[in-house]
């Protein structure tokens, strides 16, 4: 039996990894006695169900590494980890972190696996457990069904592929822009606080609502483009079939008929020359139109292209292709379509498929009708039939687009007012100017799909997400606000509050999330119903926040992880389980100083390379974290009470040019290498000298504080403020007025 004791969704950076994971506590009970090599037929059954486990490198770091471990004998918790990841992988969520660790209690493990979505990964763990048990017990297990279930959850719960591409580009190492999903849909925030932007699929917060409404009115769009000299087909709106025919004759045949306000090419018919065809096409278009208005336009011969314009630049271009079938004298057109077109593995019904299957498409019926055929007709051997003139526009042609066409497409987006636009244009040859070939822009689309450029049916995928991120955040644009994370087994709250007080004096909109609540400036935010991580994230979501101080208790670290991906300053106030055993969390199997260290170090791990860890040099565990920091380290310590190890560490740090905040007698000293500057003396700081107050409503301020740990908080606050370049004048006032 494998029993789940607990699932913990670690949504932010945690002791395992920077990415969200689910930490499952499993009790394998008696299976502790049965490593894989002792279970007859187990490995064979497992690898038969999941042959791709061969790709798992595991501890050997090479292909087949995990299979090797199976052979040598490994335990079910570790197997569960790999099986869960593989199930996610097969369902389209590839790669990812996984780890299984034993606890101090026999048979109980913590299994952590990369979580794409809490619900999905939890389900993957449950399915993984069933699979492993089935393999152990030699009972049947339907792998395909399990994978399909996860894949369906993925379609339903994860970001759509366009949004995901943008988020991936933002969070990639080269940009490291944080992302917060704001809704169950595709609304995502990039960046923090004041510097945040929002995206919603291929719309940005700068995408104009008016521009979208213009683009959805094809007739208006056409008129505006024409006024500015952009080539567009001549056309006009009609409201009944007879008018469509009259208008077609006056424009000149052949014509295109489409709904004024449709999208995705629905209800569009092209190259129509007869009254019958035109009236039939009118009916199709009318059905696809919300307003019932239909556009009759001059037919522009050529291939349909989609140009993606982002911030005035061409980012990608794709073209459509005609789809044909050739008769064999036996099969119906539908069968020929299935054999010759739908058999293409790139054609699928999922959103992520580069090409669609052709099924029950009235436009196809119309096209066949025009050729004197029908979907159930049996063409003679060798007869070629056009099925789709412009099926999926999914063949990359970015490098071929003529500069004059790029300029016109960018202008079209600008005229409509869209920052991100999909320009549909018809041209025989995209490498020649439109004017030379009577090509024209036929549509301007807001919120264009990106998939055709990310996963073209042929040609090179284009870095569309990167382009959108670069447009939103030019290389020198700020993406983050300074975030200060505070953790420690004591006075973390006091430190956070004190630092918040200092930072507010710098005239920045300062956010504070600590045990006492979440505040923006003096304004308390009503976050009582939120988890600590969600409560702290409100500060990062708030577009006013200019700097945020976030306290992370040890419990928060264990239960949710950090509220931010990275921070400017990471403070560890104190961590000394030998002196303060209550800082251990045996209920979480955090029962040794090493395990506690592993939890708390996350705070230092996430310090940005240009950031700073502010660490208590007097605590050996905290001192040890210095080497984990990607950025600078500022030590702090009370020299009056420091032991020799502390003093030695301070000296070593300063010898290497490091900074430190020191209390020497009554003086607070800012030290950097050999330089020392006296900031102020303890006697000037009233808070240090006031007794613990108890108010009438029994709310204690300063309860549990001692003179020593108040000094710790004071020094940590100074270190962080110094790291954030708070002017010393301001800092002094902040310290004395708290």
């Amino acid at each position, binding site marked *: 039996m494998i029993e789940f004791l607990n699932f913990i969704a670690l949504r932010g950076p945690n002791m395992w990894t920077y990415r969200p994971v689910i930490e499952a506590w499993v009790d394998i009970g008696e299976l502790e006695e049965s490593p894989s090599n002792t279970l007859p037929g187990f490995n064979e059954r497992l690898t038969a169900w999941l042959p791709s486990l061969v790709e798992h490198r595991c501890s050997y770091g090479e292909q087949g590494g995990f299979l090797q471990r199976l052979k040598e004998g490994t335990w079910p918790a570790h197997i569960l980890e790999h099986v869960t990841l593989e199930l996610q992988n097969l369902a389209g969520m590839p790669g990812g972190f996984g780890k299984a660790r034993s606890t101090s209690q026999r048979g109980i493990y913590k299994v952590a696996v990369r979580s794409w979505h809490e619900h999905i990964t939890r389900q993957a763990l449950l399915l993984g457990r069933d699979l492993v048990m089935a393999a152990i017990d030699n009972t049947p297990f339907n792998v395909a069904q399990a994978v399909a279930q996860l894949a369906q959850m993925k379609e339903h719960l994860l970001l759509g592929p366009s949004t995901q591409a943008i988020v991936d580009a933002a969070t990639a190492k080269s940009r490291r822009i944080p992302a917060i999903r704001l809704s169950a849909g595709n609304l995502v925030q990039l960046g923090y606080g004041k510097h945040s932007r929002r995206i919603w699929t291929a719309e940005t917060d*700068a995408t104009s*609502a008016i521009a979208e409404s213009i683009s959805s009115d094809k007739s208006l769009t056409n008129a505006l483009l024409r*006024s500015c000299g952009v080539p567009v087909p001549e056309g006009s709106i009609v409201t009944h079939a007879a008018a469509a025919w009259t208008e077609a004759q006056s424009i000149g045949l052949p014509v295109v008929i489409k709904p004024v306000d449709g999208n995705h090419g629905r209800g569009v018919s092209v190259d129509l020359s007869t009254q019958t065809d035109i009236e039939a096409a009118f009916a199709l278009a009318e059905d696809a139109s919300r307003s019932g208005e239909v556009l009759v336009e001059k037919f522009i011969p050529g291939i349909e292209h989609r140009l993606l314009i982002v911030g005035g630049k061409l980012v990608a271009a794709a073209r459509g292709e005609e789809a044909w079938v050739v008769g064999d004298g036996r099969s119906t057109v539908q069968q020929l379509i299935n054999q010759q077109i739908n058999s293409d593995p790139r054609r699928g019904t999922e959103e992520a498929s580069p090409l669609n299957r052709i099924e029950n498409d009235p436009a196809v019926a119309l096209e066949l009708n025009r050729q004197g055929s029908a979907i159930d007709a049996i063409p003679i051997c060798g007869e070629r039939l056009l099925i789709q003139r412009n099926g999926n526009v999914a063949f990359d042609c970015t490098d071929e687009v003529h500069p004059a066409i790029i300029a016109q497409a960018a202008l079209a987006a600008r005229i409509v007012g869209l920052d991100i636009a999909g320009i549909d244009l018809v041209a025989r040859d995209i490498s020649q100017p439109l004017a030379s070939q009577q090509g024209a822009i036929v549509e301007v689309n807001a919120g264009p799909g990106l998939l055709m450029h990310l996963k073209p049916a042929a040609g090179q995928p284009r870095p569309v997400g990167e382009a959108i991120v670069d447009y939103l955040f030019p290389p020198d644009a700020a993406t983050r606000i300074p975030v200060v994370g505070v953790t420690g087994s004591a006075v973390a709250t006091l430190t956070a509050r004190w630092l918040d007080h200092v930072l507010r004096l710098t005239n920045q909109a300062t956010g504070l999330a600590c045990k006492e609540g979440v505040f923006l400036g003096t304004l308390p935010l009503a976050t009582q119903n939120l988890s600590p991580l969600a409560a702290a994230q409100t500060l990062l979501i708030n577009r006013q926040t200019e700097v945020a101080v976030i306290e992370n208790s040890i419990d928060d670290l264990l239960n949710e992880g950090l509220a931010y991906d990275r921070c400017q300053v990471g403070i560890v106030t104190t961590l000394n389980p030998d002196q303060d055993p209550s800082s251990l969390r045996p209920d979480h199997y955090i029962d040794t100083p090493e395990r506690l260290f592993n939890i708390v170090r996350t705070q230092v791990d996430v310090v940005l390379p240009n950031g700073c860890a502010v660490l208590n040099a007097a605590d050996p565990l905290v001192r040890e974290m210095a080497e984990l920091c990607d950025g600078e380290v500022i030590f702090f310590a009370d020299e009056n009470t420091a032991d020799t190890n502390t003093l030695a560490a301070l000296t070593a740090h300063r010898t290497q040019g490091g900074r430190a905040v020191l209390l020497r007698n009554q003086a607070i000293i800012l030290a950097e290498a050999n330089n020392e500057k006296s900031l102020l003396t303890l006697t000037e700081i009233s808070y240090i000298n006031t007794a613990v107050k108890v108010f009438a409503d029994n709310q204690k301020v300063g309860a549990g504080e001692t003179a020593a740990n108040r000094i710790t908080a004071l020094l940590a606050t100074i270190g962080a403020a110094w790291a954030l370049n708070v002017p010393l004048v301001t800092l002094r006032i902040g310290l004395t007025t708290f």
Partner: protein
Amino acid sequence: MDIIRLRALRGPNLWGRHTAIEATLHCPSCARTSADLPDITTRIQARFPGLGALPAQNPSAQATPLPLPELIAIAALSLQISAGCPVAFYRCTETVETGVYQIVVEYSEEAVGRLAVELALELYIAARDDQPFDAANAIARLRALDEDQRLGPSTGAIVHAAVARGIPYRRLTTGSLVQFGWGARQRRIQAAEIDATSAIAESIAQDKQLTKQLLLAAGVPVPEGRSVASAAEAWVAAQAIMANGNDNLLSRSVVVKPQDGNQGKGVTVDICTQDAVFQAYAAAAAISDDVLVERYLPGHDFRLLVVGNRLIAAARREPAQVIGNGQDSISALVDAVNLDPNRGDGHATSLTKIRLDNIAIATLQQQGLTPDSVPSQGQRVVLRHNANLSTGGTATDVTDEVHPQLAARAIAAAAMVGLDICGVDAVCETLTRPLEAQGGGIVEVNAAPGLRMHLAPSYGKGRAVGEAIIDLLFPAGDNGRIPIVAVAGTNGKTTTVRLIAHLQTVAGRRVGMTTTDGVYIQGQRIDSGDCSGPKSARNVLLHPEVDAAVLETARGGILREGLAFDHCDVAVVTNIGLGDHLGLNYITTVEDLAVVKRVIVDNVSPTGMTVLNAADPLVARKANYCPSAVTFFAADSQHPVLAAHGARRQRVVYRDGDDLVTAEGEVQARFPLANIPLTHAGALGFQVENVMAAIAAVWALGLDWHVIREGLASFVNNADTAPGRFNVFQYCGATVIADYGHNPDAIVALIQAVEAMPGKRRTAVISAAGDRRDEDIRQQSQLLGGVFDNLILYEDACQRGRTPGETLGLLREGLAGAARAQQVTDVYGEFLAIDQALESLAPGDLCLILIDQVEEALAHIKQRVTESLAKAA
């Protein structure tokens, strides 16, 4: 009486600045004035008592007869006034043709103006024939059409605010999409959305749960609550909410409502028992799968309007309601309330009629009432749960009451959602205290909020909402305009336009220009043909990549439609001279033509500049009418008009030997003609004039002298860049000049230029466009006959209404008694004429070809030149 022609003058025009319908009417001799139909005035007044005052009659003299078209104009104007249109202007004049009158009637909406003229004519005919005329119906039709056409109150308020700030506007659709400003400085609005309004923010505002979550993050008080999936869950949620309540601030009761309901359907308020919650859940679940349980907020519905980061207005909204009087039934009370003329049927008026529909009846039912119930004296009967104006609600302005902290929360809410114009709905007892202090909350934020309740609230004062939105679009001091130079005149317009555009391009501006051969944006031709009318000008002003516009403004467009702009920064009138196209549109004399061109001068901004040719007496006379300062230019520095102007320390441009000089008082700048290739070092007198006009124009636009010098030096003028503008070719040692000049002034200028050039034997190839007056065509050949030896006259297919041979005959008549012409040949076909002329040339000869089909003829000449070079090689 017939309408010969009906035009809409959509911009400043010959008659004034009003938009107006211009109708040309023909009256038969039996019915021209009121004298012909003695009691016509009385009959019209009987049918339409609202007919405005007639022109004062001179009491001493015999009553002056009134032209009947004038009566029609007055009727058309009065009908519009009766329908509520703000119009006042009309005019009636007799044309040179007997019995043909032009009437001009101002309109505020074109369609309404057209209909008013039609109806006025119907009224006249009915009166004349003693038939009835339903004036009330006519006015109702006009009123309905006007409501349909005119901007709604929200958009209208924004447009008015823009106009007050001098910001130009243009409707892009028949709906509420409006462009403010021009070119690259333009902005757009659509009702209460602006072009910067984020589509994502709008989507967020539509998702109430997401909005609430974001508002929480901004510290904005929102009613506590959550969505539930069952009645049991609803009760659990309700208990949790009530447990958090307290006696002084937070209520201990809840609201249950469908997530995406509307108009208050399925909403139950202020409940606290399990039974009530279960019932309420059932009611809400009937409307939507998603049911919300929230804390009940007691108090009133308020709407706070945030624009940018400012609170602009606040209103207390009340649902449709009637107050009982102890006598009348509810339906009678509703009828009485609906008598208020401020209550209309749609959004066009400040209030909307109360509808006693199913929703109202259901609402009454909940109160145990029916439409027939008679409420007691003073009893308040609510007919709707929601307070929308569109369902008969009222709004009271309470802007002055808003507590600053409450305002800050509304602004924070708008900012958090990301809306620049935002209607924030708050529920609380009063706006005079912070929301937090009274347990109030913000329940919704709205994109594109209605402005009606703030512009014309039912009670209290209207707020400057349109102004606030315009201030958001255009910071103080920015009127959204780009500099416009309008160029009119008989000759030299196109070259002057191109040169002004080029000089600004050198100054780094993206220039859009219209000329008789196309529309150009940043040097790229985007339209071809004669583009000197208002439509092309409007296209330039619409183009988002234009920083400056230079518009050739031909008389045709002014007459047809008026100007495309309300006013320009610089108007240049090159010359009127002997005139061109006289006879069109009842413009018969050069004096009248000057009046047409005056339209552009009349519409120069008071802070702008009018550039006039001092040597042209008709032009110079314009200085008297100019609303702006004037710059005179003339080749002759001693010209009295120019000299006098200069003496007054006003701006002048003139030629001084080999330099052009700009002078303002003692300050002078010089431009050596040797550095201006266009003038052929000063040899081409007409180009010198064009250059002076262009310098004067860009001087007014504030270009630096060094930029102007650089631009003059780099300006290229050849068959490619300026087709048909004095294009010079070399053909077998002879000089060939091709030009499109087709009127006597152009030919005078050409003759002057050609005379300054060497040439043994002189040949001219000439034709004439058929729509010129006979005397102009004769004069043309007469002028050329004086200076050319060999004349080849041709006629082409396009003769604009003349019979074959007619033009040639006129040209020949002009040559009678020519001083120099020795040889005259008639040819049919332009290319043939060109070929014949070229064959006759010997080295050292000079040949002037007046081309007609510009591009084709130039291509033909170029081909012949290439062939001759190939032969020579």
